[in-house]
């Protein structure tokens, strides 16, 4: 343990921890489920491309979904078996979302792919990051962010690595157990990350309500004898395990909304992630399982090592939910969500399943008006004025909500926790954020539509113009003919006609030129504008990239095709 000073973050609350229920129970492997449902969707912006088809046999650790796009990582078969289907199935999401999943029936043999340790010392940084991406390594603290992206140093470089053992949410004990039982491998992972990034320090932050974990990690640090690794017991204060809060506590640096730790030379990883990285590098094992806590209204709460894709329903009997359980939460009670479906599988973000009963989590009492008591502002770790935000969000005054920094809200729930008027403040902030995003999307869609409209106008204009020109040319031709006829037969009745034609058509070419120039200028402007708003990544593409895009599009079409029969009819 180090004596270096810790910083404080403002706000925070001390909810009842309830960790005793499961903190003393060692990690036990969960039995192989009857089937595994492995979502290919990883976040709102990334879905892996399926590489297997129904009827195909897969090995444990085999890549079944390829990382596609910047925020994606590879998806693996958690055990050996038979692919039953690649279809839409419920995934753990507050809205009851369905996503494309690979359904595997385990054969019970646990036949591995050929495992090869990865020699990161002789690989380029890009190669290491690609390897981690292909091992499916993402943050296991709940945010699910791909680790290889976090390991890309910004211009500031990464000087300090932080291991997050905060685990500040009530009830959850999976990181606590992991630190107590597998401290050396966690630190091993951190040391590998230090080598990859060239960081000098590793700071481990653990809430001081987990003395055994602090003890185990400190002991492991001295056993490994690595320089520059310090373990810090930080005051237990929710949300001390929030990434930005922990960075603040350990380094004093505040990372604002929209910035990454790398902008400040710091990067923070969950202890479970460090452990997974260690396994990936030293054993070549991709991320196939995670530790999670089953707790709450359960007769036998505990911590389990569970294969990704295990249906939650199959997991529950391990901890034996009590009969008055009426729903289940995924994650902690402060930031988790109620599971709409128990057939949803365990995913990499599933750190905890809590059995909820009306006695344990009573329904929220009716809201009263805000009395501006300021309790919410006192506990807000983002240092916002939640009641002002609430006021603006409720009045649908979204501009004001943004001005009062609604996007800096980390949705930690501290404000709603303390509000004496029981206002569900976070719901209002989620709503405001969603509305603002939706409007921005609408606006860019509208911009695109306006552009199309203007362009069409220009085109009609141009066509009209061309028609006029053709007409003028015709008229000119006609005039010449007439003139010739007139020359041939002077002093006939056609002379006045020729004169009329001449006077009428003479000024026309000049006017037409001016209009044409104007239109050309407008067209050029529109073109320039269009170029400016087109996303850069589709400009100046090499032939290969274009080919790749075409291929991706084709695959997408195929996925859509595959997904179609299973899509609910109303979609």
């Amino acid at each position, binding site marked *: 343990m180090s004596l270096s000073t810790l910083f404080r973050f403002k706000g925070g609350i001390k909810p009842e921890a309830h960790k005793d229920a499961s903190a003393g129970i060692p990690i036990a492997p969960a039995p192989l489920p009857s089937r595994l449902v492995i979502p290919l969707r990883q976040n709102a912006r990334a879905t892996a491309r399926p590489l297997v088809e129904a009827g195909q046999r897969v090995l444990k650790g085999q890549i079944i979904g390829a990382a596609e796009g910047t925020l994606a990582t590879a998806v693996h078969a958690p055990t050996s078996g038979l692919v039953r289907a690649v279809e839409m199935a419920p995934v753990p999401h507050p809205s009851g979302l369905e996503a494309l999943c690979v359904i595997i029936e385990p054969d019970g043999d646990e036949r591995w792919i050929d495992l090869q340790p990865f020699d990161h010392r002789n690989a380029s940084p890009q190669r290491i990051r690609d390897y981690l991406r292909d091992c499916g390594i993402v943050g296991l603290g709940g945010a699910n962010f791909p680790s290889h992206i976090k390991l890309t140093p910004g211009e500031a470089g990464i000087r300090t690595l932080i291991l997050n053992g905060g685990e500040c949410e009530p009830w959850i004990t999976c990181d606590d157990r992991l630190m107590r039982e597998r401290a050396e491998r966690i630190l091993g992972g951190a040391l590998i990350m230090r080598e990859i990034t060239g960081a000098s320090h590793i700071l481990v932050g653990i809430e001081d309500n987990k003395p055994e974990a602090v003890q185990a990690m400190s002991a492991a640090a001295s056993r490994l004898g690595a320089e520059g690794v310090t373990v810090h017991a930080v005051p237990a204060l929710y949300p001390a395990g929030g990434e930005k809060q922990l960075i603040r506590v350990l380094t004093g640096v505040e990372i604002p909304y929209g910035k990454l730790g790398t902008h400040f030379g710091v990067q923070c990883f969950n202890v479970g992630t460090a452990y997974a990285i260690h396994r990936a590098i030293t054993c070549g094992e991709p991320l196939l399982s995670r530790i999670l806590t089953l707790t709450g209204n359960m007769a036998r709460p505990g911590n389990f090592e569970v294969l990704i894709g295990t249906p939650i329903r199959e997991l529950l009997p391990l901890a034996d939910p009590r009969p008055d359980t009426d729903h289940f*939460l995924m994650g902690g009670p402060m930031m988790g969500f109620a599971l*709409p479906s128990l057939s949803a599988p365990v995913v990499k973000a599933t750190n905890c399943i809590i059995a909820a009963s009306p006695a344990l*989590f009573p329904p929220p009492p009716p809201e009263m008006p805000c*009395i501006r008591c300021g309790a919410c502002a006192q506990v807000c770790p983002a240092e916002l*004025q939640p009641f*002002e935000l609430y006021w603006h969000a409720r009045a649908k005054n979204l501009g004001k909500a943004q001005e*009062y920094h609604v996007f800096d809200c980390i949705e930690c729930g501290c404000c709603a926790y303390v509000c004496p*008027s029981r206002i569900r403040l976070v719901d209002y902030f989620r709503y405001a954020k969603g509305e603002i995003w939706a409007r921005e999307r609408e606006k860019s869609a509208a911009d695109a539509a306006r552009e199309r409209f203007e362009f069409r106008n220009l085109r009609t204009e141009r066509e009209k113009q061309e028609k006029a020109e053709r007409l003028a040319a015709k008229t000119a031709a006609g005039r010449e003919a007439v003139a010739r006829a007139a020359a041939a037969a002077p002093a006939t009745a056609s002379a006045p006609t020729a004169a009329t034609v001449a006077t009428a058509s003479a000024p026309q070419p000049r006017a037409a030129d001016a209009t044409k120039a104007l239109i050309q200028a407008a067209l050029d402007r529109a073109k320039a504008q269009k170029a400016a708003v087109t996303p850069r990544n589709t400009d100046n593409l090499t032939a290969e990239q274009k080919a790749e895009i075409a291929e991706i599009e084709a695959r997408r079409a195929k996925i859509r095709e595959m997904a179609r029969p299973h899509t609910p009819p109303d979609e």
Partner: protein
Amino acid sequence: MNNSPFIRKPATVRGVMLQVLAALLPGIAAYVWFFGAAILVQIALASAAALAAEAVMLRLRGRPVGMFVSDGSAVVTAWLIALTFPPIAPWWLVVAGTLLAIVVAKHLYGGLGQNPFNPAMAAFCAMIVAYPQLMTQWPAAGFTDFGAELQAIFGADRRLDAIVMATPLDSLRTVLRLPDTRATVAGILGSGATFGNIGGKGWEWVALGYFVGGAWLLWRRIITWHVPVAFLATLALVAGAFSLGGPDKFPGPTFHLFTGGAMLGAFFIATDPVSGATTPRGKLIFAAGIALLTWIIRSFGGYPDGVAFATLLMNICVPIIDMKTQPSVFGHKRQSGGDAP
């Protein structure tokens, strides 16, 4: 389906209000000790009027009556009215003041949480403008004859000569402002039964009671330190500065702090969250403003005490104070800590 957080502190509006009421008890005890049980009658009258008015207004506005009547906010307003009105004022005065506070100052502005003005102070100001005489008849310290007080409150024929005495602030002001007065602050304070050791006789103990209750609210984190500290420090500073400059004309800080509505104002009135500033810096400005205006009104104004008018004046400034003092947000200020080691 519910959303997170799924747990909440067992805090309620009623809980907050009940703690405020509890914090008033030490001051009320001292009040009864020095000025008799009449204040309890006034508190009961005001509370009953407030609850009745609240229920009627909620029904008229189509709000859930039970839920809101039991929130306790009307009772807090009622107690503050009773504690700022003279204890021997006729019963209808305190009832009228309370009705005004609940019906006009609170519900016509939108009810709980919406009122821009502190309802109790609005009632006080309205009544002192309408009935200046009734609002300035205070009992002498040590007068605890409950029968006579009841007679003053409910009797048709109010014989007050034996009871009434000018309050310390009032008599000081009156004497100091006599034309060609030779009186000095020291001289006046040393004379007669009106003045105690540090403030008004009896009143200094009531103020101490409020101080104790207010400190408890601070400890319970119902209020933050900003308002009481800024209020008391500002009042002490201006009073101190002027009494140094003109000791004969201006009483010193302790007199100001322990007299009139200063202590009640610092801990219970300026701390009203609904009508007060909410940001930390805003609270400092708001409370300092009330204290400064209070001192000015006390020293140069036409009314004996200034807390109520000062509060209303500062209530008007709250939106702009809050807007100009929005604190900076996590990560958006100058980095306070060191860089990563």
